[in-house]
């Protein structure tokens, strides 16, 4: 068993845990958090085949969505896996702690057909964005229509945010979102979001990270 205390989330260097515990204005229009160490599995396969969906469902309890840009599964990381539609033959399975090696069973279940299961947990950082002005912040850098009439809980989309490619998943109508971004862009995107959210007041939270395990940051070079 690898030493969980030595792992680092993509934004570990920002000391977000410490910042979250500092006294912060309660009136913040935007709340930001990193959701670290959440298992992410890339799934490829022929979604038009029922056998494929069933195989996935047998393992995960949910089938991959066939409706573009939607998500199946529970809202919360803590309540098990969910599956985000990324393409007609591509999904992202999210949930569970990363060190629990969640993709093994699925790989086995699909081993007899043309499919690919790839652990990409570390490939993306996940940033949670919520608060009354969350949508305004996104609108500053994202060309999607995020108005409730066009986008809402249970929807996901791959798009552009500032100068990064992201997966955007709306969690609830408050509104709160989860933003998946390639790990090497995480520092950039976080800075950009904090900058963009400045006018509304920002509060750093670690509620998501609390729920999903331990934060890194113990390593000193």
């Amino acid at each position, binding site marked *: 068993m690898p030493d969980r205390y030595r792992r680092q989330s993509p934004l570990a260097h920002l000391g977000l845990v410490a910042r979250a515990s500092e006294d912060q204005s309660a009136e913040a229009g935007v709340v930001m958090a990193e959701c670290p160490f959440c298992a992410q599995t890339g799934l490829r396969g022929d979604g038009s085949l029922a056998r494929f969906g069933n195989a996935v469902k047998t393992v995960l309890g949910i089938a991959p969505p066939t409706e*573009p840009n939607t998500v199946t599964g529970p809202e919360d990381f803590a309540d098990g896996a969910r599956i985000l539609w990324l393409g*007609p033959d*591509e999904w992202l399975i999210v949930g569970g702690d990363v060190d629990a090696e969640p993709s093994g069973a699925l790989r086995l279940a699909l081993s007899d057909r043309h499919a690919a299961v790839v652990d990409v947990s570390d490939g993306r950082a996940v940033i949670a964005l919520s608060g009354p002005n969350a949508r305004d912040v996104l609108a500053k850098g994202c060309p*999607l229509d995020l108005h409730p009439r066009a986008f809402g809980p249970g929807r996901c989309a791959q798009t552009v945010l500032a100068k990064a490619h992201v997966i955007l998943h709306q969690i609830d109508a408050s509104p709160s979102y989860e933003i998946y971004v390639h790990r090497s862009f995480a520092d950039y995107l976080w800075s950009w979001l904090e900058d963009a959210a400045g006018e509304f007041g920002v509060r750093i939270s670690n509620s998501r990270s609390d729920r999903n395990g331990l934060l890194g940051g113990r390593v000193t070079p």
Partner: protein
Amino acid sequence: MLLIPCPWCGLRDEVEFKYGGEAHNNRPLVPDVHDDTAWAAYLFMKKNPKGLHLERWVHAAGCRRWFNVARDTVSNRIDGSYKIGEKPPAIAAETEESA
């Protein structure tokens, strides 16, 4: 700024896409049977029409799928998109000739 219909994701902003040039200029299956002129035609020659253009796009920041778009190069009006391997409905004849 274009609003491009991804066959999967629907209308999305131009900035999410990458342009892939003329569609239906397929790579010869057996390159060696083509002389240098024919090979150059495949590699470099373009229709570059004023008007209807069948072209490839990829939803690069979206679902990463390649697909075809029928667009007017003078007005930039888009008449529709269709998946790779499909024929543009109204203009099938023209495509046949070029395939």
